[in-house]
């Protein structure tokens, strides 16, 4: 019986368009779970004014 984590991982693999060999499936699933656990930190709420670090920089570059 697949667990919810199995289903979620399988969906993530399909969406990414990847093929994972059967003998590496469990290692990759565990890595996926570890990654998502760390990335939960990104769910902490930010304010509306907290903009991303990568924005177009359209400031003049000087006289070059």
């Amino acid at each position, binding site marked *: 019986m697949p667990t919810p984590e199995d289903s979620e991982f399988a969906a993530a693999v399909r969406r990414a368009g990847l093929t994972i060999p059967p003998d590496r499936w469990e290692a990759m699933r565990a890595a996926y779970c570890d*990654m998502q656990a760390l990335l939960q930190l990104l769910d902490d709420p930010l304010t509306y004014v907290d903009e991303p670090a990568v924005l177009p920089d359209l400031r003049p*570059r000087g006289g070059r």
Partner: protein
Amino acid sequence: MKAQEPLPTIAEASRRIATGEVSPVELAEAALQRAAALNDRLSAFIEITAERARAAAKRAEADIRGGRRRGPLHGIPYGLKDIYDARGLRTTAHSRLLLDNIAAEDAATTARLEAAGMVLIGKLATHEFATGGPAFDLPFPPARNPWNPAHFTGGSSSGSGAAVAAGILPLAMGSDTGGSIRLPAAYCGTVGLKPTYGRVSRRGVVPLCYSLDTCGPLTWTVEDAALALQALAGYDPRDPGSADVPVPDYGAGLRRGVAGMRIGYARRFSEDAGVGGEQQAALDAAAQLLAGLGAEVIEVALPPNDQFQAVARTISPSESFAIHQDDLRKRPELYARVTRERLMLGGFVTAAQYVQAQRLRRILTAKVAALFDACDALLTAVIPGPAPLLADTDDGPWRRAQPISSVFNVTGQPALALPCGFAANGLPLSAQIVGRAFAEATVLRVAHAYEQAARWTSRRPALAMPD
């Protein structure tokens, strides 16, 4: 020049060239002989470009004898991590995918070093595509640590660290997305400078993560890092990440010392990041030495390490996956297993997670920048301890620990790794000096003062050479 001895530093070689004690041809021959003799043991080089090096050295010698010396780098040997383009040579990124990839032009950095008259000795080993880890299922073997070849060099600029530590090259170029200059510098006992993001052009260097990638030098001394950065730094309109910020004279303040400076010691942060006993003691000793030189050393608190990790481990794999997704889907078998699996993880990050990471990155950058209101530089660890055995390196898809070095890829500030002692097993320990954005001169000044007082550079790996 004797190939049995490590090559002199850039500064020393330059002085000897100026006085006629040594010629560029002699230096190149010594580097080539040393590379040939040690590469079986260290696997630092993917390709040794002997013919090209001899021709370049002869040109440099003729120019210098003819009164056309270009500066302190003229006639000095160097190497390129094999993600840097050099016209007419392969850039493999240590990968099967790029075995036939011949560079049509020099990387911007290569062009700058060539214009300075440097002599390319060869292309250096890396972790595949500057990521992954040491792997044995690739066309080239992983580099080995000159202090003990059973141990890891650190990476991904693995060959660069090995070649400089082994005294084959006084300068090797590396790249740093999460620590890939500073980690091999730390494990191999060299100096490694990650300049401010945007300070050195990335054009012509195989990308790993556009918003984190930084190019910089590995050298034996801080003075040599300053000499290299002088040639490398500058605005490049063909690199979208390049910063149009004036380049100062990095040698001008190098010897001013640290008296009166205030240095923030992020001791608690290093402890929380798992820095071990010997490494922590060496850092404490470094802080005391800087204080003894007249600096005011204060403890400072960085934001929690897991926040930096969440940001770095979202942004880096996402951008890397975007670069490699086509190959990962169509011919994944061409990558080493460790590279393939780590790159694949980026395909599982959602768009919202990526944007959140970039938002948190801006907040963290501002918090770290604010620390410099109270101090001129920061002192932290680069690594938790000395180099592990190559056989014990983490080769799982999810790294058990992200290096401390990645903090300053997230924030973009300049950071320099340099030796701060030796572990009981004889392997180097390392400290990290960090500065305000574009304040590489301050970083170099603090590091130079420490290096001159601590004198760790006098110890080199014992590498027996045939007579």
